Every structure is written in structure tokens, then in C-alpha cells.
């Protein structure tokens, strides 16, 4: 039976969809709710305040962790997006699609704890091997190449984020007609110029969305970061440490809420922007496609 034949059935299905989204988001809303409580988490009495938001920037530990996380997120994004772009173009061109897609999407199917454990042991062994090589050669510059720290965390985060960025960019590329590149090349454009002037403007939205996803994923990642980071703290490791030890501070709830709102606004903005853009494009295309229906 057609959904529209029974409008109430159709509405019930929409209500169910939104209920599931609301259920999935309920813990987030709860954190936001707590962040406005003067008495903090678990208090019997709720008293509204915005005080904790005023205090988040004075929490030294949290701000230092936030700076590290920002550094990780920016570095990871700057490396992941070009790689995902190259991978998507490689996927479109290669015949070995199964192997490429398996290699790039497999990290999604490996549990983070298992992958982190494997990477931790791998890096420690590689570092020991480089130290041994350095000792044998009488040099020391290789000693820190794979020591746990910023570099190893970035590698772990790239492996985590590249499947998401790859899929988002690939979806956008699916709408691109490659004959346009061939035409540009036939007109004498270099490969880079054909990409930058013809292809990139058409996939820009996907690239920006993938960048936003990557930054947000880096901000929220815990497992890989905690095992591969070495000596510094990140936003999530501070939160987890607080949760498991003395309990999260009110500033931490406020900061979590703050970061969540920025993330949701960013993704919500992308959704609204692409929706408005596609509607504007449809309005522009309609008189061309159907000239008889265009208003006089």
C-alpha cells in the first residue's frame, strides 16, 4: 500500500524516525541540561545557571587539553582530506575496486580497542627497531620517529577518519561527469588545472563536509588517542579520567555541551546549506528543462 494513501500512517513513520533520532540524541541533551545546573550532576535540586560556561576558559587543564586536541584535529584534517581525495580518484580510476574499498573501509569494521592495541604494539616495536638501527649506525635522529606522541596519534586518527572522508568525497564525486575532465585535458589543460578549475568546484561541498566530519571525529575520539598519545592529555582523555576517578566537573559538562553544540551546528549548517543550494539549483534549472512551465 502506498504510504500517501494513508496520511496518518505516513505521519506515524515520520514520527517514528524522529523519535529514534531524539532517543539517540537524548544523552547529549541530558549533558546540556546538566551543564546549566548550579548544583551539578546528580543533585536533588535543579537550579538554572550559566556560570559553568563562564568558568570553562579558566580551567587550565581543560584548556591545555583542548589546545592539544585542536592541534591534532587540524593536522589530521590537513593530511586526511588530501589522502581521501586521492583515494577517491584512485578508486574511480582503478579496476581493483574491491581491494581498494576493502583497504580503505576496513578500519570501520575493526573495533577501536583492537586496532589501538595492534597499533600500540606495532609502534613500540618499530620504535625499538629504529633505535636498534640507530645504535648500530651510531646515530640518534631516528630514535623518536615512532615514539608514542603527536605523530603516532595523528596516524591513528587518520586511519580512523579516512573511511568517513573517503565515503563522503566519493558520494560527491559520483555526481561528477569525468568527460568534463577529458574535455579540459583535450583543450590543453594540465591534470592539476583540470582538477582545480573544473572538478573541484563541483565536489567542493563534499570536501568541506568531509573536513568538518574529520575535525569533529578527532574532537570526540577517545580509544585510539588514549593509547597512542604518549605524554599529553586531550579533551576526551581528560573527561574520561575525570569520569572514572573523581567525577566530571561542572566545567567539563559545560565544555562537552559547548563542543557538542558547535559540532551539531556545523553539521546542521551543512545540511541546511546543501538543501538550500540544491533547491536554488533546481529552481534555476527548471525553466531550462521545462520552458513551457516557466512563468511568463
Amino acid at each position, binding site marked *: 500500500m502506498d504510504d500517501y494513501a494513508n496520511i496518518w500512517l505516513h505521519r506515524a513513520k515520520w514520527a517514528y524516525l524522529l523519535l529514534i533520532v531524539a532517543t539517540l540524541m537524548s544523552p547529549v541533551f541530558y549533558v546540556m541540561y546538566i551543564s546549566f545546573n548550579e548544583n551539578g550532576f546528580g543533585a536533588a535540586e535543579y537550579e538554572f545557571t550559566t556560570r559553568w560556561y563562564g568558568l570553562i576558559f579558566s580551567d587550565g587543564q581543560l584548556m591545555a587539553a583542548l589546545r592539544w586536541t585542536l592541534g591534532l584535529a587540524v593536522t589530521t584534517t590537513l593530511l586526511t582530506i588530501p589522502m581521501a581525495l586521492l583515494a577517491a580518484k584512485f578508486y574511480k580510476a582503478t579496476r581493483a575496486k574491491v581491494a581498494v574499498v576493502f583497504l580503505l573501509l576496513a578500519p570501520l569494521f575493526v573495533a577501536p580497542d583492537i586496532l589501538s592495541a595492534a597499533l600500540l604494539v606495532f609502534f613500540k616495536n618499530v620504535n625499538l627497531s629504529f633505535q636498534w638501527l640507530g645504535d648500530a649506525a651510531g646515530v640518534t635522529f631516528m630514535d623518536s620517529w615512532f615514539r608514542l606522541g603527536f605523530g603516532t596519534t595523528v596516524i591513528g586518527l587518520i586511519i580512523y577518519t579516512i573511511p568517513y572522508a573517503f565515503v563522503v568525497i566519493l558520494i560527491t564525486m*559520483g555526481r561528477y561527469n569525468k568527460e568534463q575532465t577529458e574535455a579540459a*585535458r583535450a583543450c590543453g589543460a594540465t591534470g592539476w588545472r583540470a582538477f582545480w578549475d573544473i572538478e573541484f568546484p563541483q565536489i567542493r561541498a563534499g570536501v568541506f563536509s568531509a573536513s568538518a566530519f574529520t575535525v569533529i571525529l578527532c574532537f570526540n575520539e577517545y580509544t585510539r588517542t588514549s593509547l597512542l598519545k604518549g605524554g599529553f592529555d586531550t579533551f576526551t582523555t581528560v573527561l574520561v579520567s575525570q569520569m572514572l576517578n573523581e567525577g566530571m566537573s561542572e566545567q567539563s559538562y559545560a565544555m562537552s555541551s559547548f563542543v557538542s553544540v558547535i559540532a551539531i551546528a556545523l553539521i546542521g549548517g551543512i545540511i541546511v546549506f546543501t538543501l538550500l543550494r540544491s533547491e536554488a539549483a533546481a529552481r534555476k534549472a527548471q525553466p531550462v528543462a521545462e520552458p513551457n512551465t516557466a512563468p511568463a
Partner: protein
Amino acid sequence: MTASTDTGLDGLPPVEPFRPTLRERVSGWAFYIPIVFMVLFFALPMALTVVFSVFERTMFWMEPGFTLLAYENFFFSARLENFLASMGYSLISVVVSFCLGFPIAVFVRKSVPQAAQHRVVLLFILPFMVSEIIRIFALRPVLQRNGLVNETLLSLGLIDEPITALLYTHTGVIIGEVLSFMPFIVFSGFLAMEAVPKYIFEVCDDLGAGPVRRFTDVILPLAAPGIFAGAVFIFVNGIGVALIPNIMGGPGAVNAGLIATQAITALDFPLAMAVSAIMMATLMGLLYVGHKLFDLTKILAPMN
């Protein structure tokens, strides 16, 4: 006049077939960078877990050698029992996620206007924009004895006593897994459904197929690759994510991820690697079977 220079079109300049320059050929190798990166830092470490799992344990690390002690520690202890139990609970999470999430994928594909479909699916990305640890941790006050769920059910008169099985039990772990991973069955189900032409639904309606028949005979077989991919994701993460049993489960809730992290904390690296190797073997086995049965590349068919 050669074929390559003869356009024969109204005096337009001749079109030369483009040939990549040496510089372009060299820069073409750049396309292999992500592949090389993933081989070096993903495939190789995962493959080496097997090698490291047979190394000999030392006080703080391990040394090259050959011993199956880590596997003995896993297979001849309560760890195997916990691992198998967590597989069972993950299977339940897969079924619950499928029942709750897949109808959404079908509804979006079938009844939401084409231009809005991707946007609606993107709604399910929103929960991932918030740290998993915060989402899982915030479930505690919702599900605990005097939490939001129990208070609501009590006030509505639907229960006489608070339900205590919602938290610090295996049920709590299943709830955590479903809330964490269910969107993936929506994504992969929708991706698979995208490859199904929309007129198929109209044809089913025209031929008089009921909702059940349409689902079992048409939708399910066509969306099988996507459902399988989503199910594997939920299953593997269910038995591998330590965070959920750690926060939502009771003392008996253990899975492979937790065994691995506990082994690392106890500096038993060969055991952690043995657990990783077993998880990899499980994943590979599942993906191989799935690919043989459903051809998993069909999920990415719209992007080819």
C-alpha cells in the same frame, strides 16, 4: 594528415590526444599515497598481530620467539566463555538494531522525496558528533534505578517497581550497543536501497504484493549486502568496544576489547595481540562469507 590531427569540423583547430608528461606521470604516483599509508599503518600492524601474539612475554614487554601461551591463556580460561557470551549479546544487538533501524532506511528510500533523502539520513550522523564516552556515560542517569526511564514508567503506572535490569547488566550492554551502532544499519541499509530503483516499490504495489511479501521477497534480497555490512559493523564493534561493557555492564560483562585493554594494562602484550588476531580472523571470516553470499561491492554501486 594523420587521424589524430584531422578534426574535419568547420575549421576548428585540430585536437591532439593528450599524453601525460613525465612530470604528470611522476605525480600520478601520488594517487598511491593513501594506499601505501593504509598498507603500512593499518594492514601491516593488523597482520603483525599474529606474529606478536606468539612472541614470548617478558616482565614489561615481549621478545621474539614462538609460544602459544597467549592462545592457551585465551582458549583455556574464562576469557573464551566471556568472548562467546559477548558474541551472543552482540548478535542480539544486531537483531534489535536491524528491527529498529532498517525500516527507517526503507521508509526514507521509498517515501521521502529524492532531494531530501540524503539530508534525512544525515540526521543519524548527529549523535556521532558528540563523544561516544559522553553519550554512553550520560545513559547511566537515564537508565538507573531512579533514572528517567523508571521514573516515567512508575509515574505512568506501567510498572510497580523500578526495573533494575537496564543498567550494570548484559541488557545494559545491549542497550548501549544499540544506541551507539544502530545508525550504521540505517546508513548501510540506505546505501544498498539506493541501488534499488524506486519504481520497484510501485511495481510491487501494482502487482498486489502485501507489505510482508514485498519485504521478504523484494526488499530483503536487494538490500542484503547493505544489511550484512551494517550487521558486521555492529557485531564486530559489539564484541570489540571495551567502553560499553566497562560503563554499562556489570562485573560479568566482558568482551574482546575489554580483554585486550586489560591485557595491555597488565603488560601482557602477547595476550592482547592474540585477542586482536582472533578478532581479525572473525572479521575476515565474516567478510569473506558475506562477500561470497552477497557481493559486498554492490553497496558502493551508486558511487562506481
